[in-house]
């Protein structure tokens, strides 16, 4: 077998194959960090005005032990039971997530912005029996709980573990000023009470038993995905998936992730797989300090975090980097201590990565992965050859190739569906054997993304299979058009979709968020005319205030398309 073309591009310290993984499950991986860094600050939550709270590695460890004991001894959960967790980034999150793992239970991350029907679907599909929820979102529970199997509700405050005076002020502001504390009309236990009860109930001998039988193949988390295709389904991520993907990422970054020295800004929500594996687990494992921000919206919420902490690492999506680049305070004083940034979740636009490098003087490398792959499949190497517009090379112990409709590998440079094999591929979709069989064939996971590989083994995403626009038989990839429009001065964000057209089947339509004054539609189209083939040029440009986005800020073309359909129906009626 010929060696993979990308192997020679690994930095010298990166081994193409991961060494034998010394941790059987996530708690063992976490324990290793706590043993080395117990007194180090692990998580600092920063509010938009700079108020903050901090927990050390030892505190995270002790509290998550207590929470594990609470779930097993007080609530009485059994190994493998599902625990839904629904909260924005806050200090309680790592305690809850780690506590669930330590208790031998299964974590079901849930978007706090979900509506009642979405919550009902996810809770009943996963069969969750316990819910840990932010008190800011608990008002929907009365309508949701009766339609699920949830019997226990633990409520978490955003100010958990803050110094008392500061926590008190935050509570007052939430209650009387921003009015973000709805009345909770279901029986519930406050998080601190749960911890106290857990602490009283815990014992070494019992704790050891929670993980009996938990191997690398046991399900650790049900991570819901597929919102972009319709019905949301739970990807079963095993302990082994998450442990190896963590180690793959760390190994791939080589000297870019320094043990015990990094300060990483976590602006993306940790309930999302990107920040979950990379920020929460991987950076914890290397003894980093995590600066967590409950909401990066508006981006000025991040200013105090950048002001007050020497951020060395940042993870984000194109939308976040772009937003920061448009912030005056960020332009005036780009972070001095920053060393590297990683982009994922959606295509990183060349104009954004160029401006980022110019302003901060640090690399912004793009990677690629999916919920089903824990998530990292490929990344540009931090040291060595990094290619713009490319998602980089597969992380160690991962095989990636592009195939045609028949599943045959296409030639170098040819577009094909990207498929992957490695220890990070999920076990399958929870209780959906048919969908699992359609996605995983012979151990290869079919991503549904179209990509091409160059001679160096670097991959480039062409587009999402489903987002492809068919104009008179020609394939138009929205990414390519968006890339051009984003480069027009005054364009802040852009989403391109195909809309039905009588003549050409589909036509290209652009939705643009622009500065005031906005560049004219003619100017945008003229720019495209210079840089794109005729059939790719948008037939229309619509200016909008905002584009629909996923929890991490990915622009949702599906929602744009649905809006168009809904709009034309309305017109017809």
């Amino acid at each position, binding site marked *: 077998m010929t060696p993979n073309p990308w192997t020679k591009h690994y930095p010298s310290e990166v081994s193409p194959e991961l060494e034998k993984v010394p941790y059987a499950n996530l708690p063992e991986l976490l324990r290793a960090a706590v043993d080395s860094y117990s007194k180090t600050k692990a998580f600092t939550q920063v509010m938009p005005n700079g108020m903050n709270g901090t927990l050390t590695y030892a505190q995270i460890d002790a509290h998550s032990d207590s929470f594990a004991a609470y779930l097993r001894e007080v609530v009485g959960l059994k190994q493998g039971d599902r625990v839904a967790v629904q909260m924005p980034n806050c200090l309680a999150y790592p305690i809850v997530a780690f506590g669930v793992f330590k208790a031998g239970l299964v974590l079901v991350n849930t978007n706090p912005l979900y509506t009642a029907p979405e919550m009902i679907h996810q809770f009943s599909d996963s069969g969750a029996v316990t819910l840990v929820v932010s008190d800011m979102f608990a008002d929907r529970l009365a309508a949701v709980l009766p339609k699920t199997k949830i019997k226990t509700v633990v409520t978490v405050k955003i100010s958990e573990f803050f110094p008392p005076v*500061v926590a008190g002020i935050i509570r007052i502001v939430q209650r009387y000023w921003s009015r973000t504390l709805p009345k909770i009309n279901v029986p519930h236990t406050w998080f601190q009470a749960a911890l106290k009860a857990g602490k009283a109930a815990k014992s070494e001998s019992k704790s050891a038993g929670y993980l009996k039988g938990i191997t690398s193949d046991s399900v650790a988390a049900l991570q819901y995905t597929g919102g972009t295709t319709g019905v949301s389904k739970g990807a079963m991520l095993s302990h082994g998936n998450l442990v190896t993907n963590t180690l793959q990422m760390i190994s791939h970054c080589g000297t870019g992730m320094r043990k015990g020295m990094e300060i990483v800004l976590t602006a993306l929500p940790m309930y999302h797989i990107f920040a979950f594996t990379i920020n929460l687990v991987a950076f914890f494992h290397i003894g980093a300090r995590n600066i967590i921000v409950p909401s990066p919206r508006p*981006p000025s919420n991040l200013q105090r975090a950048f*002001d007050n902490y020497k951020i060395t690492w940042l993870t984000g999506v194109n939308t976040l980097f772009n937003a920061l680049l448009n912030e005056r305070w960020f332009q005036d004083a780009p972070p001095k201590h920053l060393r590297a940034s990683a982009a994922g979740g959606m295509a990183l636009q060349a104009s954004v990565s160029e401006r980022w490098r110019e302003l901060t003087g640090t690399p912004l490398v793009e990677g690629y992965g999916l919920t089903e792959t824990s998530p990292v499949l490929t990344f540009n190497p931090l040291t060595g050859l990094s290619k713009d517009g490319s998602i980089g090379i597969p992380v160690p112990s991962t095989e990636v190739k592009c195939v045609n409709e028949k599943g045959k590998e296409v030639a170098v440079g040819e577009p094909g569906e990207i498929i992957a094999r490695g220890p990070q591929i999920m076990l399958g979709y929870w209780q959906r054997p048919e969908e699992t069989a359609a996605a995983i064939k012979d151990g290869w996971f079919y991503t549904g993304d179209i990509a091409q590989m160059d001679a160096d083994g670097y991959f480039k995403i062409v587009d999402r299979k489903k987002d492809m626009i068919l104009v008179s038989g020609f394939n138009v990839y929205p990414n390519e058009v968006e890339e051009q429009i984003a480069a027009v001065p005054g364009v*802040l964000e852009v989403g391109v979709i195909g809309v039905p057209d009588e003549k050409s089947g589909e036509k290209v339509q652009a939705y643009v*968020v622009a500065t005031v004054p906005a560049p004219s539609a003619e100017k945008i189209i003229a720019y495209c005319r210079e840089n794109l083939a005729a059939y790719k040029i948008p037939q229309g440009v619509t200016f909008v205030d905002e584009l629909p986005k996923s929890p991490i800020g990915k622009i949702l073309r599906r929602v744009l398309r649905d809006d168009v359909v809904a709009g034309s129906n309305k017109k017809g009626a």
Partner: protein
Amino acid sequence: MKSIMILAEEVANEATVVNEFEQTLLRIFILIIMFGLGAGLTPKDFGLALKRPWGLIIGWLTQFGVMPLTAFILVTFVLFQFDPPPGVAFIALGALIMGAVPAGTTSNLFTYFSKGNLALSVTMTVNSTLWAFVMTPLMLVFYSRLVGLDESLDIPVGELVTVIFGLIVPVALGMLVRRLSANAGSVLELIGGVFGLLFIPFLIAIWVPRNWQLLLTTQWPTYAVAIGLGAMGMTVAYYIAKAIKLHPMNARTISLETGIQNGPLAIAVIVSVYADSPGLDQILLIPALYSLFIVILSTLVTFWFRRANVAEEQKIPNLL
């Protein structure tokens, strides 16, 4: 003219418009507010204000160019039209002093609330106060000659030094506290903000009941000068800053910084320099009225800035 004389007496009776106790209270208020404002700043913010000195330069020009000139124009074309000198000479003198004094501390507060550039605002206040040693007497001599009032003025150095220290010390302390503890810093900032909000109604509450008679009997030209000085100063400075394409945030800052003069300083200067003048009460009239109306005016302008802000500044893409 008789009415003006009567109200001037009122002013004289009150000596400094607010009494000793209220003045102390106001000072404490301002100290807390400045402390809080300081806690929102880092040295980096000041570095930026100095690194891009355009705001500072324009601010200087509007402060000592536009404001004294505005006072002069208002005196000549409004006050003197109504009653030429020597009838209102003392009132005119008060107006010219008001135009020549440096920026006031409350400008920082309003800059904060109108989402301006706070570091620039503080830097501008310090800068104009330092320059006041030279510029305030110079401008006063120049314009008072021009209107035919042969006046010269020694600025009491002690007052200016007090202003500068009263500004720098709490701001520096606030910054220090934030450096030592971000939590303590943000709590201070919050307290400062709350006091800032209370400051305006507090000021009006102690001023209006005591001086309602003055308000009722003052003639419109005096009002026009007292209110017009701040209003014109803010407007002209804003459009100059806009015309040379300064960032809207800095334009707002310069506007407020220019229009808001140091009223208490003007009053203190007058009381110490003209203590024996028969016209003391009349000289105090404009600074007293100005001090009241600038608070109301700045509040309105702040609301307008906050609203204009949303439409004018780039839209920030939303996350989540």
